[in-house]
């Protein structure tokens, strides 16, 4: 079956997790599928999204919440989008300026050394500032519809910090984060690698918690296309997914880390030092982090393929929609399960994975946060070894009870139409 379209332009943002796209190009996985792909480095998520919506780009790396936001009309032009695969799980960290780090240590040393409690130290610092009438501190994320935004807010709220009122949240492009930390225009940020590592290497910031500590093996980036494009090019779409799943599998092997880092560090791709990129690829030791309690170095958990990392879990999409409600981005009632299922195409993934003999989950939804240790996903032709998926506060997200989950948070936007939010049995 020949693809409907051979020559494609794919958009990416210079970050470690554009790796599957770059590797599929450099190692010829696209070529094997008969695709002639041009890669287009984009400077902002908004422009990348507009180009996919307008058909200037065929497909692009997107933040996991972006195709949902475009489908719901929350971000830019209203345009239904879909994703047939995730481009990786984990990544991101919260880094604070060296000055704020010192204040946090002074305020609550015990909290700072335990990432899950670290927001408590920030809370103490904020309380002092509020008593003394200082302006709220500024934290930056990379885009309003990003896991970074939801992770930072989850972490802040875990210690009773209201992200809307106790701090000022802004958006700063990732390559500008370190300069802003240095200049003192921001006090902290949640950003992907290699920017946290760079902040540490340049002595301007310290990482206080990683995305992995907030929600283990959480979704991060996806490959997105407009629904219209997917409908018109089903075979091209499948060919793209096959190439990218294979590239992801190659990337997950730690022996390929050095080779991958060298390719990714080229000026046309990420354009930063290969050693820093290597430190954010699977299996690398984190120079930024103190050893764990048993003295083992902390290993970066960026994951492109293992633990069904490429599978577009509908439960991930449903969690994202709960956060859109939680933070007031989505104010009208929708059927959470139906929207998630129309954007995250688990069925398409299974189809494609089957064509190349790769194991895929037979279910689209799992209870998130129910596994604190490595576990086995039995719902597959051959069981899949899975990594833990717990949240920092031990909460569990049962997609069938999305509304109750949403209401269980004390800090959240008002939900004027809560009776209307449906959650069809997922």
């Amino acid at each position: 079956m020949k693809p409907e379209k051979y020559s494609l332009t794919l958009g990416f943002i210079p970050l470690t997790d554009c790796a599957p796209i770059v590797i599929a190009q450099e190692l010829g996985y696209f070529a094997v599928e008969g695709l002639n792909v041009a890669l287009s480095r984009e400077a902002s998520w908004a422009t990348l999204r507009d180009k996919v919506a307008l058909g200037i780009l065929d497909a692009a790396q997107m933040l996991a919440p972006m195709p949902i936001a475009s489908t719901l009309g929350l971000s830019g032009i209203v345009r239904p989008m879909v994703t047939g695969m995730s481009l990786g799980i984990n990544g991101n960290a919260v880094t604070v300026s060296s000055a704020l780090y010192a204040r946090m240590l002074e305020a609550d040393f015990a909290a700072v050394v335990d990432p899950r409690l670290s927001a408590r130290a920030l809370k103490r610092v904020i309380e002092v500032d509020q008593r003394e009438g200082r302006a709220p501190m500024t934290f930056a994320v990379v885009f309003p519809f990003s896991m970074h935004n939801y992770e930072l807010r989850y972490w802040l709220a875990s210690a009773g910090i209201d992200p809307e009122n106790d701090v000022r949240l802004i958006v700063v492009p990732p390559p500008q984060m370190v300069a802003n930390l240095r200049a003192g225009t921001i006090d902290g940020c949640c950003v992907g690698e290699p920017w946290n590592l760079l902040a540490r290497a340049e002595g301007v910031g310290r990482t206080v918690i990683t995305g992995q500590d907030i929600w283990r093996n959480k979704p991060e980036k996806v490959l997105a296309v407009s629904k219209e494009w997917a409908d018109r090019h089903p075979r091209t779409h499948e060919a793209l997914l096959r190439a990218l799943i294979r590239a992801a599998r190659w990337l997950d092997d730690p022996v390929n880390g050095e080779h991958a880092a060298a390719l990714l560090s080229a000026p046309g791709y990420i354009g930063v030092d290969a050693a820093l990129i290597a430190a954010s690829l699977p299996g690398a030791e984190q120079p930024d982090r103190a050893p764990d309690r048993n003295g083992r170095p902390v290993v970066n958990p960026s994951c492109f393929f293992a633990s069904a990392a490429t599978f577009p879990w509908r439960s991930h999409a449903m969690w994202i929609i709960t956060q859109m409600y939680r933070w007031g981005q989505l104010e009208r009632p929708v059927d959470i399960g139906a929207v998630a299922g129309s954007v995250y195409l688990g069925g398409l993934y299974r189809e494609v994975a089957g064509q190349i003999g790769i194991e895929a989950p037979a279910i689209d939804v799992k209870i998130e946060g129910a596994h604190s240790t490595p576990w086995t996903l039995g719902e597959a032709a051959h069981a899949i070894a899975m990594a833990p998926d717990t949240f920092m506060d031990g909460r569990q997200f049962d997609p069938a009870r999305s509304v109750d989950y949403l209401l269980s948070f004390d800090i959240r936007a008002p939900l004027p139409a809560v009776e209307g939010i449906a959650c069809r049995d997922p």
Partner: protein
Amino acid sequence: MRTPGKRLRIMLVDRLPERTNTVEHALSAAGHQVVARVMAGGDLAAEVAAVSPDVIIIDIDSPDRDTLEHMRTISRERPRPVVMFTNDDNAATIRSAVRAGVSAYVVDGLHASRVLPVLEVAIARFEEFQAMREELEQAKSTLAERKLVEKAKGILMRQTRMDEEAAYKAMRKMAMDRNIRIVDLARTLIAATELLEPQGRKRGP
């Protein structure tokens, strides 16, 4: 609505100073004022808040687009029209984006002669969009208020065995006596009931 010919306060976000110079001259010649020129980096959100421009002109390939995008989603930051320019040759598709009414793009790069007409269009569209959004907000809040009154009426009927009309009259009288809006009375009534008979959704874990 803006009166035609009004002097606009403009913020330019661009990496290329030479290009910015040309555009600034053209805008000044047309009676507008460039109140800020931003190269990239820094705290653009703070700068916009401090300068408070009527319109922002930005290179579509500037990473700062995401910062502006975020500001549009925050209600407390006053939204401002954003005009984007690009050297992309996808003129037709970009024009369709302009027609979609969400963004305004200037094609063929930032040529001074093209900026002014597009600026006018962008501002007009933006104001249309804002007006529609405000209308929608208004409609939404009216509906929400009606629902609150209905809910409070139901509580009153359940607790006092009044019929619907009597319950409504009782609420209207109470609101008039206290000189408050009936929806505020409904809110108080609902809150009081929830306090006295906590039967809402379970909170936890």
